[in-house]
């Protein structure tokens, strides 16, 4: 039988090397065996020398969605250190990696790299705001890379979050690269560590509880005799029965309603009792996330905008102004694919006729689309006062978006 999928709880002890993964495959190594070891629950790689250190297995599928806990024994003193995963590996000279990187002082970044014909290059690096690494602390790291047929490129994503915390919606870093196509990419996957310093140090990377998402269906190996032969313990029947059992378990875990909910990414941000001065900034700011499900919106980095990934989106903005001196307000969403974004014009004085109803309330909805997989569509709202007073009180406002369709269909 050929083993598919990849998972490893590292529940073993190995002195020089990594042994065999929980999913059954024996690890191959890039690096010296003495640099790798396994103590119960943790794999360690001594990365303190030049070059990538990789332990990898074959999971029989190219596209990858892998999660595990990662840590460094110490913070680098002179240069960067990285820990994470490799994917689509064909050989030790050709593969992708997605990693968490720590700089001297503890600043954390997420990095995509590739090794093509033995040459290492960085695809992109994204700083993780507000996270300072403390030596020895494990973080969850999730790395996804898949070949997009519509885009004809690999789309890769990363996120990191504290062990025990809820996994954040969306991704913290996304990039694309087409160095290895669906024809040339490999099916091997594994754990990764690298010390960027040319000075030998003592940093050790650690991995725990690694799981590549796969239904792990067993397949008969090409060498299996598929003919009926009682003399070889009925191999065909056994293979079919184990395949049926595995398919049974896999199908039982699929919940279409839950998964479908995850396919309707949606987000809503709001603010209440906002004192707002149009002379300072035309862009409205938000301080609450009412919900944020399965979107790439990183509200932590920008409180004025939604960041919408590729797709067709229905965006809605609602606003309720407190009474104020008579004035006109132009409420104009910014972002969108071109000029002519939807807008509302309204008064803040309820004694005047209001363009959108009494009491200084307004609402605008529009369909829009986002096409660039590396640069999400920024969508926010500006207010421009026509004349007179510049200070307003917004009793409530909310900006929301729901993806209604994929773009490439």
């Amino acid at each position, binding site marked *: 039988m050929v083993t598919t999928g990849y998972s490893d709880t590292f529940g073993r002890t190995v002195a020089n090397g990594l042994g065999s993964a929980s999913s059954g495959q024996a690890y191959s190594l890039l690096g010296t065996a003495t640099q790798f070891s396994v103590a119960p629950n943790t794999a360690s790689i001594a990365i303190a020398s030049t070059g990538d250190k990789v332990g990898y297995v074959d999971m029989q599928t190219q596209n990858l969605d892998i999660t595990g806990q990662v840590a460094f024994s110490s913070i680098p003193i002179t240069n960067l250190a990285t820990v994470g995963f490799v994917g689509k590996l064909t050989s030790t000279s050709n593969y992708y990696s997605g990693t968490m990187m720590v700089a001297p002082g503890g600043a954390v970044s997420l990095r995509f790299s590739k090794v093509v014909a033995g040459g290492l290059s960085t695809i992109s690096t994204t700083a993780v705001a507000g996270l300072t690494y403390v030596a020895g602390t494990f973080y969850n790291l999730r790395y996804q890379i898949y070949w997009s047929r519509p885009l004809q490129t690999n789309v890769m994503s990363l996120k990191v979050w504290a062990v025990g915390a809820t996994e954040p919606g969306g991704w913290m870093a996304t990039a694309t690269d087409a160095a290895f196509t669906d024809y040339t990419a490999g099916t091997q996957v594994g754990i990764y560590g690298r010390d960027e310093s040319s000075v030998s140090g003592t940093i050790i990377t650690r991995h725990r509880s690694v799981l590549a998402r796969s239904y792990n269906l067993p397949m008969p190996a090409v060498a299996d005799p598929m003919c009926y032969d009682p003399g070889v313990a009925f191999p065909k029947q056994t293979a079919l029965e184990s395949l049926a059992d595995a398919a049974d378990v896999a199908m*039982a875990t699929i919940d279409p309603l839950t998964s*479908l909910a995850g396919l309707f990414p949606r987000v809503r941000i709001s603010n209440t009792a906002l004192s707002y001065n149009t002379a300072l900034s035309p862009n409205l700011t938000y301080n609450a996330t009412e919900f944020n499900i399965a979107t790439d919106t990183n509200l932590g980095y920008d409180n004025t905008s939604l960041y919408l990934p590729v797709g067709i989106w229905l965006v809605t903005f609602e606003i309720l102004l407190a009474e104020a001196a008579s004035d006109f307000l132009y409420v104009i969403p910014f972002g969108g694919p071109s000029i*002519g974004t939807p807008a509302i014009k309204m008064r803040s004085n309820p004694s005047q006729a209001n363009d959108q109803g009494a009491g200084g309330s307004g609402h605008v909805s529009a369909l829009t689309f986002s096409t660039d997989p590396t640069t999400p569509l920024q969508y926010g709202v500006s207010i421009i006062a026509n004349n007179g007073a510049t200070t307003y009180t917004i009793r409530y406002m909310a900006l929301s978006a729901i993806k209604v369709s994929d773009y490439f269909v």
Partner: protein
Amino acid sequence: MSGTTAVEGYPYPLTPDFADVQDAFRLASSVDADLRGEQAPFRAFMGRPSFIGRQTATGSGFSVGSQALSMGAIDWDNTGGLTAGSSIWNQPLAQQPSWWMFGMTLFVSIISGTPVVGDMNLGQINVSTSDPVTGLPSSSKFFQRNDETNTAGEWINMFAMAPIYQGSVVATLILNGTTPKAVQSGSRLWGMYLGPVT
């Protein structure tokens, strides 16, 4: 076949059986049917029909009458119902009677002069449909009125939800006043499929 799995009931041969190629075929067919059933809602979601059409040049001024929003640019359309330069969206002929949501962002542009407070600005979404049994045509008109204040041109945002079959949609600006105005470049008509009429 002498065995089935506990949850999904997939067929498999037990070791005393004399299995043949039909065993693998039956198992594969069973799993395949289940997977297709599970994936159906996802595939339907990924292909949800929708469109966005945009006017690319401000229309000629008029003060009494109507002017259709002309979609010089197709920002997005996976329905096949838009034609660049046309003012109409046509529902796919093969689509069953379906609920759709339509929206319009209509910028009313002052062509000359000063707007007069109280002049009528009316946005209209006209949804035409056919009776699925008799084929008789009918239409529903949705309106949003936003009369002139003194702000140098009004903006109209409106939405309509309607069941349609072999139908079409046109967005229109209707005026009754004294100042020449027109549908401004950048105005949009959009729509998205909500689901079948049941």
